[in-house]
């Protein structure tokens, strides 16, 4: 099942069919295997055909044959040239002249075979009014050939067919190696770019057929064979298997799946075939959404690369001008053929291939590594900015805490006990959707308190609930709400409530009959890893700030326990936004971490918005980076990754620029033979590819003993023990 070409062939910002990097301004269009594909460079077209074309016999190997036959001619030319240079018996003028003609006969098909792709590209670019790297190569090869052919016909002493052929062979080889490296760099991203062109094995009464996932609707039955990726969200109808969901949930170990259980699109089926019934349309899965986001992120040019590309374009014109003036200068100093060789070396060595590769490769590998650990980075630019961040804004609810209030304390005041208090409160809360109600019911369930519903329940938003239960009026809510209903708190009750509030809890009152009977204290449990994460941020030299819309006591309790640098409570969305402005002025770029739903404005205002564990539609989020549920622990690692990516880009650019500058100076001075220049140039690109691929090692998170996601989540969401609630 060789997938057809990418569906992402929109003219603006599509991706190369081989290496999946952006095509750039002038993609190379080729018709292959009956479909048209677009490639970012000649090397990618070459590599694509060689690696994918095994089944498609005729067209597949054409380019490799080209390279092989070209190399055959080139080797013969080199051999004869070496003999000509080396030994005296060949110095006979007549013999030398004969050899020159043989060289010409070999070099002409050679130029056609290996030089033509470069020439075609150069001409196409020239028609559009641009100069590219191909222009440099073509100019060099054609001028070397032209001069040598003329020298042969006029019987001059030196010809330079060998130089021309070796330059062409080395460049073709360099392009091929570069493309292979780029495809390798995109290996991690491949499963996430797959959904757009994913096919599913649809099982119907009349048989099975392969169809594009985007055409399928909920209810269709899809067979997934072992080793295949699950193409749709759905539940298993038949079959047993172990499924690797790491791509979607970050869960490292395969999960056993049987009939009735849910499987997620994008997970890898392990051991057995599964029949899955689709629950949502093929396009509506999280996998498809991530795929769109990743493809989009690759199309966003990063700021550094944008700059490098603009410089490279200007650079090419400058190099052509330099080469011409170098030839003119050296021709005035000595023989013309020597001057021409020096000009050729200048053209060859100046090719800014490595410059164009420096940033996108490192960024892509970085985004891929992050994805492998469940962190979705929406653009390379976001990753670059994350490395420069000085302040980390942390939201409390849902980020540092589990986001679900749990009943911490159930305090009976007068004429009742804790169990009875919980039983009556639960009866009243039973029909409610409020977060606190869920906390009460969960606690009642955990304490095995039987719950029967109260009658005539009325809710006052921001106040509480009242109703009738077992013949008495009953209410629960804020102190003011109960006062409105006619219940007055006792002095002892007020003191108790104040103590609980100071501990960071949210307190509600419960009353029935004539009196207020007790207090319920809720708190949002701190995630166990929060402390360690803040410590890791401080070690990286970041300023940590806790922002929350919650009450001061609750925020302060959290702030002291995780030791953030500063905190601010009772913030409205406007307050949060102005806090971002303020912190940016005082410290530098600001990143904000939130749950992505309530914190949209905050995340949008920050330089980098990071959402944690949000299942909302990715496309509508303000966040540029999305961490999985319970993925707070990955934050320091992600920052480390961003810094390393940035460092790699800097090294790549420094290398590409520095190398070009030094080599260019040497070549212009006449100290660099063109063949060596070509070899160095190909080597330079390969070095940049290699340096970027080293980033793959960052796969292992840096913080030792980082708990797997599932454990961290489970710990954070653990209910307080029953004994804790009913104590007192």
């Amino acid at each position, binding site marked *: 099942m060789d997938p057809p070409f990418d569906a992402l062939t929109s003219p603006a910002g599509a991706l190369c069919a081989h290496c999946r990097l952006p095509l750039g301004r002038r993609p190379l269009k080729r018709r292959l295997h009956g479909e048209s594909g677009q490639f970012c460079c000649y090397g990618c077209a070459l590599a694509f*055909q*060689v690696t994918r074309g095994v089944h498609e*016999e005729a067209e*597949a*190997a054409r380019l490799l044959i080209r390279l*092989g036959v070209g190399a055959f001619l080139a080797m013969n030319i080199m051999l004869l040239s*070496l003999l000509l240079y080396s030994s005296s018996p060949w110095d006979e003028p007549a013999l030398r002249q004969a050899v020159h003609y043989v060289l010409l006969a070999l070099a002409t098909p050679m130029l056609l075979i290996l030089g033509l792709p470069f020439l075609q590209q150069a001409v196409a670019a020239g028609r559009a009014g641009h100069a590219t790297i191909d222009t440099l190569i073509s100019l060099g090869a054609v001028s070397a050939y032209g001069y040598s052919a003329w020298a042969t016909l006029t019987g001059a002493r030196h010809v330079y067919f060998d130089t021309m052929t070796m330059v062409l062979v080395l460049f073709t080889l360099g392009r091929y190696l570069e493309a*292979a490296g780029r495809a390798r760099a995109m290996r991690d991203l491949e499963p996430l770019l797959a959904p757009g062109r994913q096919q599913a094995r649809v099982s119907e009464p009349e048989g099975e057929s392969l169809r594009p996932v985007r055409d399928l609707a909920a209810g269709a039955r899809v067979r997934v064979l072992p080793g295949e990726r699950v193409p749709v969200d759905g539940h298993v109808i038949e079959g047993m298997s172990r499924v690797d969901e790491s791509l979607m949930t970050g869960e490292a170990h395969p999960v056993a799946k049987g009939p009735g259980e849910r499987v997620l699109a994008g997970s890898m089926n392990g051991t057995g075939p599964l029949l899955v019934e689709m629950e949502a349309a093929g396009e509506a899965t999280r996998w498809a959404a991530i795929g769109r986001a990743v493809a989009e992120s690759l199309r966003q040019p990063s700021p550094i690369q944008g700059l490098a590309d603009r410089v490279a374009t200007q650079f090419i014109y400058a190099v052509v001008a330099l080469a011409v003036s170098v030839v003119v200068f050296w021709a005035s100093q000595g023989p013309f053929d020597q001057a021409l060789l020096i000009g050729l070396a200048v053209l060859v060595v100046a090719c800014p291939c490595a410059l164009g590769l420096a940033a996108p490769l490192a960024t892509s590998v970085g985004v891929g590594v992050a994805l492998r650990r469940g962190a979705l980075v929406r653009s390379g630019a976001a990753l670059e900015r994350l490395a420069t961040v000085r302040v980390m804004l942390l939201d409390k609810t849902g980020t540092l805490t589990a986001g679900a209030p749990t009943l911490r304390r159930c305090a009976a005041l007068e004429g009742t006990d804790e169990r009875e208090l919980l039983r009556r409160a639960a009866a009243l809360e039973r029909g409610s959707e409020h977060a606190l109600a869920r906390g009460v019911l969960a606690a009642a369930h955990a304490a095995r308190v039987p719950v029967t519903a109260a009658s005539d329940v009325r809710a006052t938003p921001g106040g509480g609930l009242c109703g009738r239960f077992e013949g008495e009026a009953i209410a629960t809510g804020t102190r003011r709400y109960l006062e409105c209903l006619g219940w007055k708190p006792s002095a002892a009750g007020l003191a108790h409530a104040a103590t609980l509030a100071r501990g960071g809890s949210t307190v509600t009152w419960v009353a029935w009959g004539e009196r207020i009977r007790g207090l319920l204290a809720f708190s949002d449990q701190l995630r166990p890893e929060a402390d360690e994460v803040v410590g890791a941020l401080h070690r990286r030299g970041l300023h940590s700030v806790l922002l929350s819309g919650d009450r001061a006591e609750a925020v302060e309790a959290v702030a002291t326990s995780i030791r953030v640098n500063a905190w601010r409570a009772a913030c409205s969305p406007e307050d949060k936004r102005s806090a971002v402005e303020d912190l940016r002025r005082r410290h530098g770029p600001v990143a904000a971490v939130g749950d992505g739903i309530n914190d949209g404005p905050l995340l949008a205002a920050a330089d980098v918005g990071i959402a944690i564990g949000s299942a909302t539609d990715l496309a509508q989020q303000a966040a540029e980076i999305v961490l999985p549920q319970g993925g707070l622990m990955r934050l320091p690692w992600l920052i480390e990754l961003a810094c390393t990516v940035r460092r790699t880009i800097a090294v790549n650019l420094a290398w590409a620029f520095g190398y070009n500058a030094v080599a260019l100076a040497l070549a212009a001075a006449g100290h660099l033979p063109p063949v060596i220049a070509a070899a160095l140039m190909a080597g330079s690109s390969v070095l940049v590819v290699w340096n970027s691929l080293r980033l793959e090692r960052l796969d292992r998170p840096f913080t030792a003993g980082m708990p797997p996601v599932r454990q961290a989540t489970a710990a954070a969401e653990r209910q307080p023990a029953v004994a804790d609630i009913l104590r007192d």
Partner: protein
Amino acid sequence: MEFLLIALAGFAGSFHCLGMCGGLACALGGDPRGRRATVLRHLTYNTGRVTTYVFLGALAGALGGAIIHHGPSAEPLVAGQRILSIAAGTLMLIMGAQFFGYFRALHRATIGLGGKGVVVSLKSLLAAPGPGAPLAFGVVNGFLPCPLVYAFLAKAAATGAVAPAALTMLCFGLGTLPAMLFTGGVGRLLAPLWRRRGVRLAGGFLLALGTLTLLRGLLPWTLHSMH
């Protein structure tokens, strides 16, 4: 005389080639248009292969020449040639010993050099039609890592000049020709026992040539010129 020896070593060594390159030659297979076309196909393939060897030989000779002419002695030619001969002879002895089962790790290292990517690209060439494919196949095949080729390249470098170095590799290449033609579509694969004997024989030739080269570097110059 020595070139004949090299050709013989190449011939004996080609029993070793049958292991990997013979498999490739077989994979190249026959031509549907008949026996003549098949022979032509394999001749083209071998032309590509031998051309690569000769080219590499010429490069090695040029490199050897460059080393000799920058030798550290007052008589640069003599001293440089000796150093080169000693180095090449030692390398050849090591390679020869490999054929008798010594230096296993080294053997794996030489075989493992970047072979995988090349083999993948070779596979796509096999099926392609036209006269270009077998030629390109042969050219790439020539670059595949092979201890025998390395040993003879060392020998070629030791000659210190382009022409004799290229000739050395040509002799080696021609020596491998009969066996390679024999397997590729023309004949059947040899029995494993004979192949092992051939490999031993190749190792023997390598050891002999290596000793000769080494001695040329070690023995006093006068004695050598008498020889």
